[in-house]
């Protein structure tokens, strides 16, 4: 875990969410004061800036103390939030990307390959959304096409063959709703990926780091152990989609997010996930190092829980876990 931190967040985001607007103003003012002090020798604004820092810290704590489900969706989609690539770079060594589905294309919305985790060779597979305009387009905003799922199936088979644990990192708005994707069997590709998750005789652990969007997420997250980051979400449909179907008004996404129970806390209560990974105050992007450490620790723990089990037990436990899911509802 990282060192204890001061009240001031390590990094300020390049963009703020709508509900963070008052916070943006205060943090902006503190930045201005410090810039002014740097430009004008002999001017000391540090006391004023520190007062603003303290005010910002209190506000941040208050804002994040109990985020509404819709605000969690916004944090989960924050453009500065660390993505799959960031976690792989921070937590894995010798990452060797493996490309292609051997059938049609390489889908950059899904990245995967061999890597070492704590020296142990593993297969890591995840959705990557990209972090600037160019990479977001290349990676199709993390919305995989059939080739992405088929690549994942291929890599899971390889891991199974060589007895490597599989780690999946989930962060997708959902599978891509496109013409070509449908023509090339989007449904079948997702179904086969979920099926493969249930068949492999090696440990499979999964972390939802941002958005767990519907079937596109399940296709990777049908795992022995599933963790969610504190402000990530996992749902059957986006709140906007749910609102437009059930409320006939996509602007009702706040109500839909509330009704769907898509937060990590709800999913833990429902027995759908196994653990919640705490995030730095203000979201994963405000202290990347702390986020990487927390995710790394969770992956290590989850792998530890299932390492050493026989192939049969791994498969049987994974199936049993999903078969028994849903036996309890939320408390009234």
């Amino acid at each position, binding site marked *: 875990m990282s060192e204890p931190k001061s009240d001031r967040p390590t990094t300020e985001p390049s963009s703020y969410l709508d509900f963070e607007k008052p916070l943006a103003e205060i943090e902006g003012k503190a930045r201005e004061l410090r810039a002014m002090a740097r430009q004008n020798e002999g001017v000391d604004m540090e006391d004023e800036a520190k007062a603003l820092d303290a005010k910002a810290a209190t506000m941040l704590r208050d804002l994040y103390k109990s985020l509404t489900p819709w605000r969690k969706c916004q944090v989960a989609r924050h453009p500065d939030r660390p993505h799959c690539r960031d976690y792989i770079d921070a937590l894995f060594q010798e990452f060797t990307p493996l490309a292609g589905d051997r059938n049609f294309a390489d889908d950059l919305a899904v990245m995967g390959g061999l890597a070492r985790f704590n020296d142990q060779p593993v297969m890591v597979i995840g959705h990557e959304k990209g972090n600037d305009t160019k990479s977001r387009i290349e990676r199709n905003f993390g919305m995989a096409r059939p080739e992405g799922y088929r690549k994942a199936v291929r890599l899971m088979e390889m891991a199974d063959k060589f007895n490597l644990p599989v780690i999946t990192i989930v962060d997708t708005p959902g*599978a*891509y*709703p*496109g*013409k070509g*994707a*449908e*023509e*090339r*069997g*989007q*449904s*079948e590709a*997702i*179904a*086969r990926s*979920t*099926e493969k*998750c*249930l*068949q492999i005789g090696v440990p499979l652990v999964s972390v939802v780091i941002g958005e767990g969007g*519907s*079937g596109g997420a*399940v*296709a990777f997250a*049908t795992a022995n152990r599933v963790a969610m980051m504190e402000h990530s979400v*996992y*749902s*059957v*449909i986006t709140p906007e989609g*749910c609102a437009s*179907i*059930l*409320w006939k008004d996509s602007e009702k996404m706040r*109500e*839909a997010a509330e*009704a*769907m*129970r*898509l937060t990590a806390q*709800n*999913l833990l209560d*429902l027995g*759908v996930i196994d653990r919640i990974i705490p995030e730095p105050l203000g979201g994963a992007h405000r202290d990347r190092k702390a986020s990487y450490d927390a995710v790394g620790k969770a992956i290590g723990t989850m792998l530890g829980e299932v390492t050493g089990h026989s192939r049969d037990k791994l498969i049987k436990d994974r*199936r049993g876990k*999903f*078969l028994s*899911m*849903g*036996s*309890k*509802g*939320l408390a*009234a």
Partner: protein
Amino acid sequence: MNWITNYVRPRINSIFSRREVPENLWSKCSECGTMLFHRELAENLNVCTSCGHHMAISPRDRFKALFDGGVFVEVKVPDPVADPLHFRDQKRYPDRMKAAQRDTGEHEAMLVAEGEMGQTGIVAVAQDFSFMGGSMGMYVGNAIIAAAERAVKLKRPLVLFSAAGGARMQEGILSLMQMPRTTVAVQMLKEAGLPYIVVLTHPTTGGVTASYAMLGDVQIAEPNALICFAGPRVIEQTIREKLPEGFQRAEYLLDHGMLDRVTKRTDMRDELITITRMLLGLPPAVKGTLPKPEAEAPAIEAPATPATPGAKK
């Protein structure tokens, strides 16, 4: 037996039919506009006798036509926790459920049955689009698991008729979890070496297509059925272009290698008998040895000649 009570959007349609077709004796084909005599339409399994358009058919009517003599035994499905999320949109979920039960006369969106089809023991599951859009919630998951377990126990093939808009949003993440749950059910069948035949009917979309409905040993669809992951409207909004004629329809999927066959409903039973018997290594079904429909059998009779191509030799 009034078939229209089991039709999609039953209330709307029954109001419509009351106005247009007095005493429900006639109904109008939504494709070609031909007025069809109700009894004749029911005998043709709700397929328009004029243009061949396949209208919705209830799971019960489908099973009456599928099983020998229309005789089948329902397989009990465990009831899941009701309204696990305490879900409320514009209505409460339990109220929506009650309305669906009242309108369809069914308990939920899936019917499981066992019986004989061409003297071949099978377990069958059919999804009911008229019940909340056939949506896949925990009950549907439980139904498929119960069907698979029953099939494994009896060492019989499972024939599944899909029809759904997708996952049941009112059950949130638990509806999504039916994708892996039902996939486990399919694996039970595969590991037992039992045939799993999927018949995709109009419409089959979303998480249903992306799980059990695409994992059959043999994938058959009814003509012109819409089969997709993302619906055409969502795709048009995403790519901002018009989709080609017939996009995501059964024949289009057949062309793109996603299905084995597109088969008319009226030929489906014979085809299912032929396929399951071959997969089970059984001799062809013999014409004429099947029990006749019993006297008290319902108005919809099983097709009179369940002969297979093999039997014609």
